């Protein structure tokens, strides 16, 4: 009924339960880790890439019996290699002692806090204001393609230009004079919202596109106003899309250097751990500075910590989301 849901759930003749699955995953992971380690030590990561493609194809073949699975997995693995190989190389280059040292550095903690917090604000702002916009765009109105283009436009604005645009557009000498923009959390959030909003809006709009209008009729006829219909029917049905969009906006914000370096190089923010307002830097800026004033191993250790934290957050979010979206999909 409009949710792309297959009926008839899972039937597994051989009960490959959760345990079976996760031990399989573990085995595959270990195999890949070992293969990569060997390739790395032999200085032949190309061979690892080849191995990864082949193993993906094999797994695809076995898992969903046949050449289609193999081909899909192999093609997908090309992208995974393109993305994963640099990351794996990056991880392999880490010097554990430097990582450990940086992980204990309170300045790094402050940076991590800011890097989670400001993008989170930006993602929330984006979702709060972007979801109604996505809804309207999905339902269509006169001139919607112009608005859609306006929404998409920040995507193509070069990042440092984006920072300038925020500086020119807001705060003293521009709109909303009372709003301090330079070096403040609001300015940073504005910049992050500017660069990340299009992603969230687009994903959520796709979500609304997939909602069956008849469900809205059904809600209305049972007494729900448009707002209640939106709240109880449309919103829950795009929950997953909002989550994806929100995560993408958050992650996009975490990685933003250009705009932040112009608008909020040093940011004053309230740091609950210290219980006071401190000055800190967004992760990309911090990492860049560590690189400039320190060394590559140091800065990449910080980058590594950032990535680790992000993976943890991703897994957490999907886990929580998977738990709550029971019955609707997944």
């Amino acid at each position, binding site marked *: 009924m409009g949710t792309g849901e297959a009926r008839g759930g899972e039937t597994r003749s051989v009960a490959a339960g959760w345990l079976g699955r996760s031990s399989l995953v573990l085995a595959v992971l270990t195999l890949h880790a070992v293969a990569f380690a060997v390739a790395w030590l032999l200085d032949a990561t190309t061979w690892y890439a080849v191995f990864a493609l082949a193993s993906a194809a094999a797994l695809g073949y076995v898992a969903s019996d046949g050449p289609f699975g193999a081909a899909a997995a192999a093609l997908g693995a090309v992208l995974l290699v393109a993305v994963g190989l640099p990351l794996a190389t990056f991880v392999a280059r880490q010097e554990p002692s430097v990582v450990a040292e940086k992980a204990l550095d309170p300045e790094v903690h402050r940076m991590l806090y800011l890097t989670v917090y400001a993008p989170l604000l930006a993602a929330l702002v984006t979702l709060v204001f972007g979801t109604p916009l996505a809804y309207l765009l999905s339902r269509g109105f006169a001139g919607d393609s112009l608005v859609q283009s306006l929404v998409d436009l920040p995507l193509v604005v070069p990042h440092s230009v984006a920072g300038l645009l925020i500086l020119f557009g807001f705060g003293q000498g521009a709109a909303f004079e009372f709003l301090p923009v330079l070096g403040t959390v609001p300015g940073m959030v504005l910049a992050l919202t500017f660069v990340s909003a299009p992603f969230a809006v687009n994903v959520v709009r796709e979500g609304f596109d997939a909602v069956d209008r008849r469900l809205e*009729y059904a809600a209305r*006829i*049972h007494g729900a106003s448009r707002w209640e219909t939106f709240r109880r029917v449309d919103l829950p049905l795009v929950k997953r899309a909002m989550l994806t969009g929100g995560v993408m906006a958050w992650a996009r914000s975490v990685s933003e250097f250009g705009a932040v370096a112009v608008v909020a190089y040093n940011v004053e923010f309230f740091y609950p751990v210290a219980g006071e307002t401190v000055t800190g830097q967004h992760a990309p800026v911090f990492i860049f500075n560590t690189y400039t004033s320190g060394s590559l191993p140091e800065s990449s250790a910080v980058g590594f910590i950032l990535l680790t934290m992000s993976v943890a957050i991703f897994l957490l979010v999907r886990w929580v989301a998977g738990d709550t979206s029971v019955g609707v999909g997944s």
Partner: protein
Amino acid sequence: MSLHAEIRARFTAPGAEPFVVDAALDADAGETLVVLGPSGSGKTLLLEAVAGFHSCEGRVAVDGRDVSDLPPEARNFGFVFQDYALFPHMTVAENVRFGERYLDDGAEVDARSLLDSLGVADLADRYPPTLSGGERQRVALARSLAVAPDAFLLDEPLSALDAPTRAALRGDLADTLADRTAVYVTHDRTTARALADRVAVMHDGQVVQHGTPDDVFERPASPFVARFTGSNVVAFDAADAGRGSDPVAIRPEHVALVAPGRGDVEGVVERAVREDAAFRVTVALDGPVGAVADGSGRDGDALAADRTLDAFAVDPPAPGDRVGVALPEERLARFDE
């Protein structure tokens, strides 16, 4: 609460001729109006327009009060969708309780007992996507019944159910609808006759006959209605003096099979099929007498007669038997035009 609706709307879709609905419905307070009509005649679109889902011309009046400008939620109708439209993210119980909070009197919805009365109590915690067709339909019905609206708009609410369940629910539904106004779309003539206080027959977006069940079934206004409601339509040869050449209608259950030579016309049994309770004998008529084309796109010259089995002295007639057919004059329906 009486319902009066006049709807004029034009629907367009890629690859389609525009479909025009131009129809009026009337149901007095407490009445059940059954809407009959071939597939694609616009029953669903009409119901949706009455509910306020499509902007259209015309007016919808409840107890004489014009509600055309009200949004669907303010019209206080119930609606059972032909394709259910259950909320996939809510459990069955949540679906049924959906409208609870919008009830004026703050009443509570007893989802369990409603589901129980429809025979699906054990589905309360399920999500719609894995329900069977008939289960979904009953949940949709329960959801609509829960809000106890002024008027029900029901689009084939029992079509996916097996016969015993349908029969039982039809009885329950008759009780529920007894003192409510309802517009009930169905293909099922049994349901139609069992529930209808009035019947409207639709064809090509228009209501072609609107009257009591007896009116519509026994006195069809046109050959189309006659055929559609199951009557035989017969046109006697003009040469056959005394009868006139206008087509007439007669219901199969009024056609008597008699010994050859003793009826009004005669012919050869073409088929004799058990149709659930009844036994349908189809007779290919001789000579100049023929059934007429009726606009349903199908014509022929065979006549159907329905009998229960023991109506036949010994064995029912078999294909190939020659029989006489009596068409009692008092059972013949003539068309106005």
